[in-house]
């Protein structure tokens, strides 16, 4: 399949003949610089941002249920007039020496749009709520060597079960930036290249890395943001 030793993915591909992968990097930015980031993204993407308000429920299998312990995410898009639901399963990350050398995480990811009673179904199947979050922010979807999605959001926790109207930020003053792109075993090297290349444009404002490897805020952010705010994104960073 490639020079990467990605046996798990390869085996799954052989068994199923169908599965999805995604390339992902994350970073953080201070809320005060989010407006500058939005101006930069607007200039780079050439598309309008979309508002983001997603209720995310992470469910885990009851003890002893399943050949292995499992986890599934239910996403409710609250931006729609009639909220829509998606089930997401995030699988294992690509491993091996080759995978370690690239700065983008490649992992299996399968999504399915579902009707609204999905939480009831998973409860009935023996899954329990582990935690829930509310992501509020915006997203850009565009084509740039790959179908890239950039989301900028504040991550909020609920004070009461499912009370999305009473959510408070987990990290006040800090927002999460995530760049993702769908991929397949055939094209993920090109997608990784496209995501890496796009991330370079954002480097003065924030550093993006594999999830779980936080590199904090970048020291050039304030100056870069000031420059962007003063000329509306016309400056080449």
């Amino acid at each position, binding site marked *: 399949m490639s020079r990467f030793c990605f046996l798990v993915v390869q085996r799954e591909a052989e068994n199923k003949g169908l599965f999805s992968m995604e390339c992902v990097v994350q970073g953080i930015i201070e809320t005060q610089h989010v407006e500058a980031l939005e101006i930069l993204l607007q200039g780079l993407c050439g598309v309008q941002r979309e508002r983001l308000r997603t209720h995310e429920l992470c469910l885990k*299998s009851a*003890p*002893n249920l*399943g*050949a292995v312990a499992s986890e599934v995410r239910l996403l409710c898009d609250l931006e729609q007039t009639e909220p829509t639901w998606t089930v997401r399963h995030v699988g294992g990350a690509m491993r091996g020496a080759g995978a370690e050398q690239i700065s983008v995480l490649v992992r299996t990811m399968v999504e399915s749009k579902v*009707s609204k*009673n999905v939480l009831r179904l998973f409860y009935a199947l023996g899954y329990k709520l582990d935690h829930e979050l509310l992501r509020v922010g915006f997203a850009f979807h565009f084509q740039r060597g790959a179908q890239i999605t950039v989301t900028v959001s504040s991550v909020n926790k609920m004070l009461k079960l499912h009370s999305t109207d009473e959510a408070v930020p987990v990290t006040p003053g800090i927002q999460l930036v995530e760049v993702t792109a769908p991929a397949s075993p055939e094209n993920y090297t090109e997608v990784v290249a496209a995501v890496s290349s796009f991330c370079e444009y954002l480097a003065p404002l924030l550093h993006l890395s594999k999830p779980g490897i936080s590199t904090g805020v970048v020291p050039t952010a304030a100056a870069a943001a000031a420059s962007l705010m003063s000329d509306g994104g016309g400056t080449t960073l």
Partner: protein
Amino acid sequence: MPLKWLLHWQPNAGASVNSQILTEVSQCADSMNGVKEGRWKSTLTFYRPVIRVQDQALTSELPRDFLGLSMHDQPNKYYFIIRAQRLVLEADLSIQSIMEKLQSYKTRVALNFEGIQYRLGDFQLRVGKVAPINSESLRGIVLEVEYLPISSLEKGRQIMAEFLEIWQEAVSKRSLPGHFMHMETNFADYGLSDHYSSQHTAVQYAIVMAQLIASAQLRS
């Protein structure tokens, strides 16, 4: 989408279902000048939980009637039904891949519902045999009756009943050891409205399946 009723063949006491009945039922559709429109197939899967360590409390709280359904007229969708909890879910086909990755439920048995589709004016009729996948053994006969101009269950009720009366009469002339049965379903219990959808069909399949199992158990 158009209103649909799903009926199942209920054998008389002591009788069983066989391929001769299926042939004769198909001949009924022919005799009513039904135009053959090709073949159809839906697949119903029974799932069972995978329990790592024997856990009686867990086993007792998990559903015994967790079904999955792929339908001939919704090739990109998949349906889950838990009848005991009046629960039906519509999902993209990729949900099957997610369930496989979760490894918490396995296929216990899967049954094909397949046969020939007929057109009779504004009605579509699908006669189908029920058989386990990879097996020819006949477990039941079903009939899908779809009335194309109407989507409202309530508004379509009378015309469906009238059509079935004509159909039952045609079948009864053949003196077969049984009859087709339509189970009335309270779809509101499943959170479904009067406007017909594929989720209504999924619920009907789960109910018919329960009937087929019950009558098979009675015979054995």
